[in-house]
């Protein structure tokens, strides 16, 4: 049996890590295993390779003799559970969240970008931002709908040279999906931090839509300026309870000159108001500056606990329905007062002088709203419409003539 090809393969793998080995020695070892001990050739190859890898302190392959020849793929074609070989550029490195992780960040090629994780146990070489690498036998897995490239002890990594520069593809906000994406948009809202670790959160919009963003506290990171346009390269798109959010910690954020048209409130929806959700009517809000959360019955704020110096507000949460589709709508005080015909002061008075308290306001809201046809305009995030203007619709006799014609047309 001829072992020279196998020996050549093993020799190349070891030499690529900078350890020249004698091919004849490898061949002898293989021959001994196969001829003397009856080991299958593939298993012999694995054994010899591992032995040498251990000798030189290289990452040990655990492919189990699966052939090792994994087809090279582009990042855009990865699928969950695959073992892959890819060539890509490290475009972002982020602080490791755990000692078990040596490095984490984002790699990109012409087709896509994905998050990657290098386990500490992988003994992998240190990766530098901006360089291209070839990852052999990395594993693709999925977390919350987002693909990850995992570098483990069986992965071999080699720096490669790459011709031409990588041109990141900008995704319209409305087309975002969990993963990694580049976005050009304007900071249209800034929200007060709801957590100690949040540096900034708010909303970014472009021509196609709006998405929330969050920037976690990290050394050297700066807040974005509201009203400014930015190009954001390689942000992580998370899916949290079905709502998307951009995490900018991985991203390179470049301020742009000028302004863009943003999709601020062009969505509209017309239908019957079919359900008034709990939390509508008269509510008490948390007084902590910038929090403004609605308190529970016991005046409990999910972040700031018991608050007794709350302030009152009116709002509508509920569902519009046109018979084919539904939209959750959220209406703030000014529009609510007009729709229900009750001011905040009247609502407070009603609550104070009624045995049911704030529930009475809810019941009045329900009687005034459920079953009414409404036209709402506002900003849509996922399936929820944040209503900026809303009107009650009325019977339009001119529609009757049209419909009579339509119904009678082919009688």
């Amino acid at each position, binding site marked *: 049996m001829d072992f020279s090809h196998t020996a050549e393969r093993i020799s190349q793998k070891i030499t690529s890590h900078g350890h020249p080995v004698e091919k004849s020695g490898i061949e002898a070892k293989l021959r001994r295993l196969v001829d003397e001990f009856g080991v299958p050739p593939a298993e012999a190859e694995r054994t010899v390779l591992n032995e040498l890898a251990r000798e030189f302190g290289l990452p040990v392959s655990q492919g189990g003799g699966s052939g090792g020849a994994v087809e090279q793929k582009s990042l855009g074609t990865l699928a969950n559970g695959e073992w892959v070989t890819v060539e890509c550029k490290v475009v972002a490195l982020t602080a490791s969240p755990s000692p078990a992780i040596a490095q984490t960040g984002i790699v990109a090629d012409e087709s896509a970008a994905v998050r990657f994780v290098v386990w500490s146990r992988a003994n992998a070489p240190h990766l530098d931002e901006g360089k291209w690498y070839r990852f052999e036998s990395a594993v693709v897995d999925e977390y919350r709908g987002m693909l990850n490239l995992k570098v483990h002890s069986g992965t071999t990594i080699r720096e490669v040279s790459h011709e031409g520069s990588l041109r990141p593809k900008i995704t319209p906000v*409305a087309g*975002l999906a969990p993963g990694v994406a580049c976005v050009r948009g304007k900071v249209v809202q800034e929200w007060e931090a709801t957590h100690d670790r949040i540096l900034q959160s708010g909303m970014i919009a472009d021509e196609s839509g709006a998405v929330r963003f969050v920037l976690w506290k990290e050394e050297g990171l700066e807040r974005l300026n509201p009203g400014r346009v930015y190009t954001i390269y390689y942000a992580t798109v998370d899916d949290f309870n079905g709502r998307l959010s951009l995490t900018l910690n991985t991203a390179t954020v470049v301020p742009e000159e000028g302004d863009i048209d943003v999709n601020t409130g062009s*969505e509209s929806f017309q239908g*019957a108001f079919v359900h008034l959700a709990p939390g509508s009517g008269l509510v008490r809000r948390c007084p902590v500056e910038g929090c403004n959360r609605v308190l529970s019955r016991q005046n409990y704020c999910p972040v700031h606990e018991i608050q007794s110096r709350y302030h009152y507000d009116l709002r509508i949460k509920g569902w519009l*329905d046109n018979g084919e589709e539904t939209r959750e709508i959220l209406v703030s005080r000014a529009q609510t007062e007009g729709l229900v015909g009750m001011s905040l002061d009247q609502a407070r008075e009603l609550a104070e002088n009624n045995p049911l308290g704030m529930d009475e306001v809810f019941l009045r809201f329900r009687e005034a709203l459920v079953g*009414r046809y409404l036209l709402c305009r506002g900003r849509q995030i996922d399936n929820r419409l944040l209503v900026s203007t809303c009107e009650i619709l009325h019977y339009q*006799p001119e529609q009757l003539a049209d*419909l009579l014609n339509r119904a*009678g047309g082919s009688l």
Partner: protein
Amino acid sequence: MTNGTGKGMAGRRDGVFEREPARRVFAQELKESRVHFKEGQDEKSPSYILLPTGARCNRVFFAGTLTEKKKQGEQNMFYRARVVDPTGTFFVMAGSYQPEAMQQVARLEPPCFVAVVGKPNVYQTPDGAVLISIRCESITQVDKDIRDQWVLDCAKATLDRIETSAGTPDGERARKEYNIDPGLFRKMVYEALAQLKI
């Protein structure tokens, strides 16, 4: 209206709650329905009735005249109510599993205009007749303006179904199950509209 993006992007993702739309259907068409089915094996997967004009229906919204309400049962008290539209009668029920709707019915004095949101249920009587009743989620008193708006809304929705049913799987299924031409419901729509004042 640009409501395409929301549906296409967010609606299909897992974990995003999608509320079942409330179909607009005249009493006469609802009375003709008898096919009901469930999508999925889960206890919580929605159940539907198949409308003869070819659409699945998990929930309905209608406005009409409350003509009668009746309290029934001792231990498990519930209300039966009749709500009339230009084509026939809806049978509405509100039981102890719908305490809020029950309280709403209790406060209403027939006759009055009401708007009802509820889920249709199919019952078979011992002699084989099929009855559809609406389990009420909400019933609120409204004015004639809203009742008239609903008649227009329902007429339009019914005509839309009649005109598109031929090309949809549910439309094909309805044609097979009911063996009637959905076009026959045009007459019902026309007569309902004719009762409104121009």
